[in-house]
């Protein structure tokens, strides 16, 4: 998936207000969202396929969210699933992911967070696992752990390397602070202070300082994005 492409989403959620808001919000950013109000309808719609990502609430009428995911996986439907739930504890998350979910977001959430995660899931489906990531003149070699900008090799700490790797894997997409904390540090708690911002600014000073073209951008109210500013 590339920027500009639109996604087809299915939202399985019984709260009308929340669903309407999501459908509208996704439409505003150019995606197509359909919805189902209970587990049974949602299962039938998802079976027919054609969706890029399913957004499934855990507590649904008729059929529990996790049961729907289990049934879909049993029918070899591999559409990525993001689970939405009011249950945000680590245990609940583990349970959701074990049931076949690909990502888990606790309510209440920011739409920017949901959007970023859904886009990341849709991208993952594309199966892009290159050994070398390139954004403009920045190059990251995942095998040799070498990072080069232009002609200069950049020395990064292991954690900074993983941070940059994750950002570049999702180049052109918004990556939220929580996504970074979960995927780069593997922490699922809220660090209270915005520790991530400081790590980003350190990274930025290494890859962008002294170059005319900044690559690592802050997306207000959402997170960060690496992209080729020229495009």
């Amino acid at each position: 998936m590339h920027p500009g492409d639109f996604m087809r989403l299915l939202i399985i959620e019984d709260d009308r207000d929340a669903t309407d808001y999501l459908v509208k919000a996704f439409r505003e950013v150019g995606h197509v969202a359909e919805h189902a109000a209970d587990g049974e309808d949602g299962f039938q719609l998802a079976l027919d396929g054609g969706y890029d990502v399913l957004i499934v609430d855990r507590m649904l009428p008729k059929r529990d969210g996790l049961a729907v995911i289990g049934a879909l996986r049993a029918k070899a439907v591999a559409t990525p699933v993001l689970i939405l739930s009011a249950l945000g504890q680590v245990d609940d998350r583990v349970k959701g992911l074990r049931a076949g979910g690909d990502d888990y977001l606790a309510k209440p959430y920011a739409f920017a967070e949901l959007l970023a995660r859904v886009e990341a899931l849709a991208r993952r489906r594309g199966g892009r696992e290159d050994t070398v990531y390139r954004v403009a003149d920045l190059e990251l070699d995942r095998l040799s752990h070498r990072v080069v900008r232009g002609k200069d090799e950049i020395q990064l700490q292991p954690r900074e390397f993983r941070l940059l790797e994750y950002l570049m894997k999702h180049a052109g997409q918004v990556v939220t602070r929580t996504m970074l904390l979960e995927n780069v540090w593997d922490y699922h708690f809220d660090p209270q202070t915005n520790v991530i911002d400081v790590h980003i600014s350190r990274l930025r000073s290494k890859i962008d300082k002294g170059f005319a073209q900044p690559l690592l951008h802050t997306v207000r109210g959402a997170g960060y994005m690496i992209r080729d500013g020229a495009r």
Partner: protein
Amino acid sequence: MTALGKLLRTTAFRLTLVYLALFALFAALLLAFFALNARRLITEQITAIINAEVSGLAEQYEQGGIRRLVLIVDVRSRRPGSSLYLVATPNGEGLAGNVASLEPGTLDHTGWMETAYRRLDEPEGTEHHAFVRVSELPGGFRLLVGRDIEERQRIYDIIAVAGRWSIAVVVVLGLIGGFFVSRRVLKRVDAMTETAQTIMAGDLTGRLPVAGTGDELDRLALYVNAMLDRIEALMRGFKEVSDNVAHDLKTPLTRLRNRAEAALRNAKTDAEFRAALETVIEESDGLIRTFDALLIIARAEAGENGRGMVVFDAAEIARGVGELYEPLAEEKGLRLVVEAPGPAMIRGHRELISQALANLIDNAIKYAAPTPCSSGSATRGERPPIMVSAGVDGDRVLLTVADNGPGIPEGDRAHVVERFVRLEQSRSQPGSGLGLSLASAVAGLHHGALKLDDNAPGLKATIVLPRADAGTG
């Protein structure tokens, strides 16, 4: 229910009754056994004496005929305490002896029998019972030898009377004893019931009386009291929780509402509205954060999440979380040093321990003071403003965060670890302010504790956890 009725229904009294009945039955059986045996013994003795006499007299008769027999019987009859003797002709006429009268027909059959008799030296009309043997001598003469059995009867009667009396005494004493024991037990149980009623009425400070004897009622009272202590603590905690939840959530809610109101009133341009809405979202994010922290603490306090514990290295957690916060500390001009050579294995929730440690470090960064030399290379002997360490101490693992900030006054330290209790001055600090409470709750969930010490100056917060053997898990 009357007082007596209540007494009679007590377990102690009922037990007394059962024991009493059993004891009385036992005593009766024992006495009956004695009586029967005594009777048998006496009968055997009488039989032996009579048999000896009969065979002796029969011998005399064989040697000296009826004349000699009559002579000997006459002599024996006159001895004091003698047996009964009667020598009679074949047609029943008495020849010698000390028997005045017999039941009619006694002499008709030979062998053993019981009969009524009167002695010669006794007045007319008296009657005794005797056990006699009648035998026929060659020549048709009859010989009767017997012994009085009144004595046997007397012994029998004495035993019977003794039995009745002893059973009566046992019953009376037992009832009196049972009465007093039951009354004593009842009194204590009544006291307990009364206390329980006041507690049920809502006064949780009441405690069951303990007599100090260490008996089973005392043990029960002690355990119930311990349970009441726990319940009281939980109730107090619950009240504190609701008070603090109210405070922690209402304060930001009020702020949120004020912002929205102010925006409605004052904002003129789109940009102003936008800015106001952004702060509203920020505030609500803070609210969610506080709410999440409260939820985690509540869950940890309730001892939930018992499943899903794994064995891992706490030193690795210290390094990881320390690394996460190090740039933040540096940005504030603070040097954060991690000293965690490891391994320090513990068994628990990796995520919760990480979060607890993160909260402590976050606090330390908030309160620590930059030292003049902190930005440059470390001066020798100079303590870094923030020190994060993980280590093993015997069978415990210590996760320590030490800072050089204002610290916590000693009097407040114990207080501040209690859940949801925060110092007034810290409430005004940014963040949910639940960091210490959360760390304490998480430590408690792992059967550990959060310890606060003076770092002179500053605070030294230590999460003390039981060490896991490398083999477990």
